[in-house]
């Protein structure tokens, strides 16, 4: 009897204790479980903003905002605490393990992972949260940004190739694909996004996007306008596919012209008014506080290569983008006494200057480029002059630029100063036209290696088993 009581008591105590539920959800920070399964409208907004915010992080990195412009010989950055801004760009090669070689990679793939996560979750969002068309708008936006980030990575890596992240598998490492294949992939992504956006008709984003979407001439919260952004980006990609001799040359450029015309809203060469040049989709910046995302170009150590100022044509109003420095800066063998107007650290407003993701002035010049490459110089000149004359320069005639080479030179001049310090566009062009070489470009330093691309970071090589595993595949 006693033994029974004992056993019973013991058993009861143990059973009672057992009932405590061992599952403890994380209470401190949200986990990915919070956004897997069925999303709410708020969840979709949060994840979409995550994609945009991380793209902004990539744009703010020195590897994206500064190094390409230094490689393109428009920017100098002279920092006594960090001579590698010169020694690893204009004076030597970049180090894949540190400073100038290891950036501009991870952030791109984090954004792409964020985009893939949201794209995978969107189909599961119940219709009570988002309508079908709203879902399509978000999907189209996110897919376009995913393509945009692949493009940004390619801008930095060029022929080194980029990795193609498997869409839905965070555990598999994707192959490194060659530039041609990457451009094809990006083009396909953009076209698929375009189809999705077209299906959304007149719907808008189900949340208020950042002001960079609405404050600059066009309301990109509408699907119809996101289509324009998508087509503009596709046009840009097609121009470079053409220069790569992907598709038959003329075909790529003709396609580009059509896409860019859609984006610009007019098929008339030269028909885009100057008032539309600043229209576009922008990233905005916030100085200080918890967000602390200032414009990366606001930096007292940035300067403009004196050769860039010297190459300006007389009367070009874009000369106002280059202002004198209070005190000349020099170091590591280079020096300058001028800087970019947006780099003046004494002007607090520079901290919050927006940076264009894609604006119409660039699209006009890209269309001019496509026209020239497609063998339609008169149309190209029409677009080119619409930009040139806005800045006080005289219009060019065919007699002024009779050859494709001359046309390219004229175009590169306009692109250089219209899009001065606005991204890696110039580096991409110089590379595409084979101009970044000894004998064609003046060396900045005696040891100038004419770097054209930033290496793939050492962490990627290590994870794959060595730098030899980074050879891009093209099939």
């Amino acid at each position, binding site marked *: 009897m006693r033994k029974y009581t004992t056993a019973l008591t013991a058993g009861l105590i143990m059973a009672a*204790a057992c009932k405590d539920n*061992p599952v403890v959800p994380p209470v401190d920070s949200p986990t990915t479980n919070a956004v897997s399964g069925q999303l709410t409208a708020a969840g979709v907004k949060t*994840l979409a*903003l*995550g*994609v945009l915010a991380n793209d902004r992080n990539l744009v703010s990195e020195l590897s994206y905002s500064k190094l390409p412009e230094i490689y393109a010989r428009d920017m100098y950055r002279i920092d006594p605490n960090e001579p590698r801004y010169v020694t690893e760009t204009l004076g030597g090669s970049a180090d894949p393990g540190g400073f100038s070689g290891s950036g501009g990679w991870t952030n791109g793939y984090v954004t792409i992972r964020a985009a893939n996560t949201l794209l995978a979750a969107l189909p599961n969002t119940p219709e009570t949260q988002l309508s079908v068309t709203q879902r399509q708008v978000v999907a189209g936006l996110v897919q376009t940004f995913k393509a945009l980030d692949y493009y940004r990575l390619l801008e930095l890596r060029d022929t080194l190739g980029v990795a193609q992240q498997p869409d839905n598998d965070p555990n598999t490492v994707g192959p490194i694909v060659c530039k041609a294949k990457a451009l094809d992939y990006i083009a396909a992504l953009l076209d698929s996004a375009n189809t999705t956006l077209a299906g959304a008709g007149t719907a808008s984003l189900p949340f208020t996007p950042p002001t960079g979407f609405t404050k600059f001439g066009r309301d990109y919260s509408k699907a119809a306008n996101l289509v324009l952004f998508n087509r503009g980006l596709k046009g840009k990609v097609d121009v470079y596919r053409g220069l790569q001799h992907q598709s038959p040359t003329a075909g790529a450029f003709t396609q580009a012209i059509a896409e860019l015309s859609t984006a610009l809203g007019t098929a008339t060469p030269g028909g885009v008014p100057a008032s539309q040049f600043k229209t576009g989709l922008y990233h905005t910046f916030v100085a200080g506080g918890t967000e602390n995302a200032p414009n990366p170009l606001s930096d007292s150590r940035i300067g403009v290569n004196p050769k860039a100022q010297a190459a300006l044509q007389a009367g070009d109003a874009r000369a106002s983008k280059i202002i004198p420095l209070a005190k000349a800066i020099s170091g590591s063998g280079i020096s300058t006494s001028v800087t970019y107007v947006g780099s003046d650290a004494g002007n607090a407003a520079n901290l919050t200057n927006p940076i264009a993701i894609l604006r119409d002035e660039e699209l006009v010049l890209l269309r001019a480029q496509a026209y020239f490459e497609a063998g339609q110089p008169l149309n190209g000149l029409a677009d080119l002059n619409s930009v040139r004359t806005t800045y006080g320069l005289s219009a060019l005639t065919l007699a002024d630029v009779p050859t494709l080479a001359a046309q390219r030179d004229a175009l590169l001049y306009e692109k250089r100063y219209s899009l001065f310090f606005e991204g890696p566009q110039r580096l991409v062009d110089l590379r595409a036209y084979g101009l970044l070489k000894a004998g064609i470009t003046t060396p900045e330093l005696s040891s100038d290696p004419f770097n054209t691309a930033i290496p793939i970071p050492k962490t990627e090589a290590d994870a794959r088993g060595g730098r030899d595993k980074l050879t891009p595949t093209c099939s």
Partner: protein
Amino acid sequence: MKIRTVILGALAVLTASAAQAQQRRITGRVTGEGGASEPLSGASVTVVGTTIGSYTGPDGRFSVTVPSTGTVTLRARRIGYTQKSVTVPAGQNEIDIALVRDVLQLEAQVVTGTATAVSSQNAANAVSVVSGEQLTRVAAPTIDNALQGKVAGAIVSQNSGAPGGGTQIQLRGVSTILGNYSPLYVVDGVIVNNNSINNGLNVISGAARGNYSSSQDQSVNRIADLNPNDIESIQILKGPSASSIYGSKGTNGVIIITTKQGRAGQTNVDFTQRLGRSTLAKKLGTRCFTSGSEYSDWAANVLGDTAVAKRAANAATYNAAAVKCHDYEDEFYSNDQLAYESIASVRGGNQSGTTYFISGLAKQDNGLAPNDYYKKQSLRVNVGQTIGSRLHLNANSELLHSITQRGVSGNDNNGISPGNIFASTPSFMELRRNSDGTFPVNPSPLLPGSNPFQNADIIKTPESVFRLLGSATGTFNAYSAERQTVDLTLTGGIDSYADNAKIVSPAYGYTEAAAQGALAGTLFNSDANFVNANLNGSVVHRLVMPVFTAQTSAGFRQERRQYTITQITGRGVIFPTVTSVSQAAQTFPNQNQDLVKDFAYYAQEEFFTLQDRLLLTAGVNAERSSNNGDQRKFYTYPKFSASYRVPMLPSFVNELKTRLAYGMAGNQPTGGRNTFLTTLLYEGVTGARSSTIKGAENIRPEKATELEGGFDLTVLNSRVRFSATMYRKQIDDLLLQAAVAPSTGFTSQYINGGQIVNRGTELELDATPIDRKEFTWVSNTTFSQERGKVTSLPAGVNPFIPASGSFGTSFGNAWIQPGQSTTVIQSYQGCNIALPASGVCPTAQRTIALVGDANPDYTMGFNNSFTFGRARLTGLLEWRKGGDVVNLTNNYFDGYNLAADTLTSQIRYKTWRTGQPVYVENAGFVKLREITLGYDLPASLTQNLLRGALQSARLELSGRNLKTWTKYSGYDPEVSNFSNQPLGRMQDVTPYPPSRQFLFSIITSF
């Protein structure tokens, strides 16, 4: 406490057994060596071969009823005395038993489970037992301080000399890289919390920059709160072979604390009053300038004041100074306020089974810097009640409050740490308070304004803790027969505390104004609430047969622990008297919370046979935890051990026990189950994306397996005991972060993998070389040596620097690499190219090498006690041989050429810049940790005082950390800028200097 109650329950005063025909009552008395004049109460008297027994009363008398009229053997046992067995022949019913004092403390009860214990005579593990008396022989501020030098296999290191604690205990080496590194602390059956809470020093020191607390806040681990005077004994389970009973919390060892309980009999009142004072134990000194031109030369070199006019001005500044060479450390670390400690306790019990122990403590220690202190008050009430013959209840509770102010020390980037200021201020500059009460602005051009005297005066950093520990235990003797008992034990307990840390740094402080600029005026407030709740239950079945005794136990253990830490920093508080963060121009909040639920089952069999010579144990513990990837899965931890007391020994050998133990324990993952979302703001709106650190859904505890063997030898009439232990501990499934290809969108992921192997030897020699009535000498010597090695790292994990392990390879960093010691130090050692004219080897050209090891080669403790008549002299010396520390403080002085010994300093600095590890120094030391001289007042005197109420009184003069012999050039070879962490401890960055303490105590007993 628990063990005794189990035995008490098991030994019913009257047995209710299957009746034997004839009952026989044997009575007698248990005394000490003094015979009739020294009765021993509370001694247990058991009938060998049965479960029958009883306890002696206040007069030392006992009474047992045995069923046999033939010869019986009685065994008498009492803490502090050697057990003794006597035979009672047939026909005799009265016997006196005289016990001999256990000077070497060879007898103790060793914990083997939640509710089981065995005599240390049989114990199969090398368990260290430290009695309360040994612990508090010299007043120590905290429990972990008090254990220094007393436990073989334990390295107990202080983090700095700041008041209030901050010590790390490492048992048998480093057992983890990213996981939990603290031993588990159990007080009266309740697992208590030993977290360190970052108290926000970073917001004014800028050590890690930013607006939040950091790991460089010089924080204190909270076991420091407990009152060491309440402790009856501490047992240390050093490795998984013993700590397997604590499952996935046992890898780092378990420290089991038992508090004092009441005793039936005469009520004892004890009162102790201590007064003490601390002084600075070591000075580093600063450079003395002997002439104006020497100073202007220095300024020309260091500040660039080469112009003639500047030189003249500088020389004039020197010449105008009132004091040409200040001893800043003397001026600053001179807090000579008296420290005090008052301890009172009442202990007693009545005949109806009630026992009580009540104690109180009030103490104040003063730090060396002005306005630094550590005040603690505690009240403990332990009550026990026996109900009937079967049930015993115990309730223990401790309420304590402490408030500490430790000032600023350690690493900083704001020019606020006193060491940093002294290394940047030419020593003729006056920093002390002016006659009008204001403080001079520090004229040093290297640190504009910062005045440590002003900082110590106006910056407040109080950390206040309210803590409640409570536990209740019930032991029920469910069944009792002549040969069998079954006992049920249930313990429930809580450890909860609220830790509030504040920092007030007014805007008008020179350092604050210079460091924070427009946002000068900083407030910080941290509120941390921790609760640990435990519920343990067990069933113990004891079977005593002629050939064997078997103790079977089984039970469960449930733990729930949770915390919330809410911190907020306010910057830009312009009104100096305001301490509310709501007045700040900018605020930075942060909150952390966690909840963990653990549940374990265990079962154990202890089998004694061959006349109690052979003990075989097998046990298993199955535990699940919400920290694991699979929160429902039980992980099992088995243990097996055997010990054999060798028979047929030569006459001079009293005991020889050989032992072998094997056990497995675990270390719960501290994170890694989840992939978190990182929130990003875009125009103030929250966006989120997955973190770049991928969690592992199947993250599991680290697994530690230990094989330990040894022997204990007692010879020469139990006057010498020698004990040797060797162990090999292997830790698998380490919690690590593996790098992954960033093109996946992740940079790393949590995995389990890799292995660490620790091997070591522990030797102990206890002896009473001289044992006479007028003079005794008791000696304890320990030796321990441990080597740990990272034997493998899994794929995807390359050799790396563990977190907080480095200020840069040029100084020396911790390094994890397969095939190397876990505590190896890596630095530069040599230049690949010929040195350029500047004498500086470019970083890219320096050779990286493994240059040292933070682990000592071996450690020894020497504990000696001499008693002559009524006087006693006791000393504890600790010797740590080898072990390296990275002395970054020297670099502060070297960089500005303001070290006291300029020649050595500049040679060192030049050598450093060629790429040599000059700051990695040997930190071996010999420390005189404790020394006490005590005198018992003669009975003739005490009896006349206070009309006979006073039973005994003792006067003591003692010292703590009086002398350190070391080659280390810094303040103290025991140092850690990052407070408690498993690796990378060995960093000395302008820490709080160590102190030596003198105490005078009056210890009275009524």
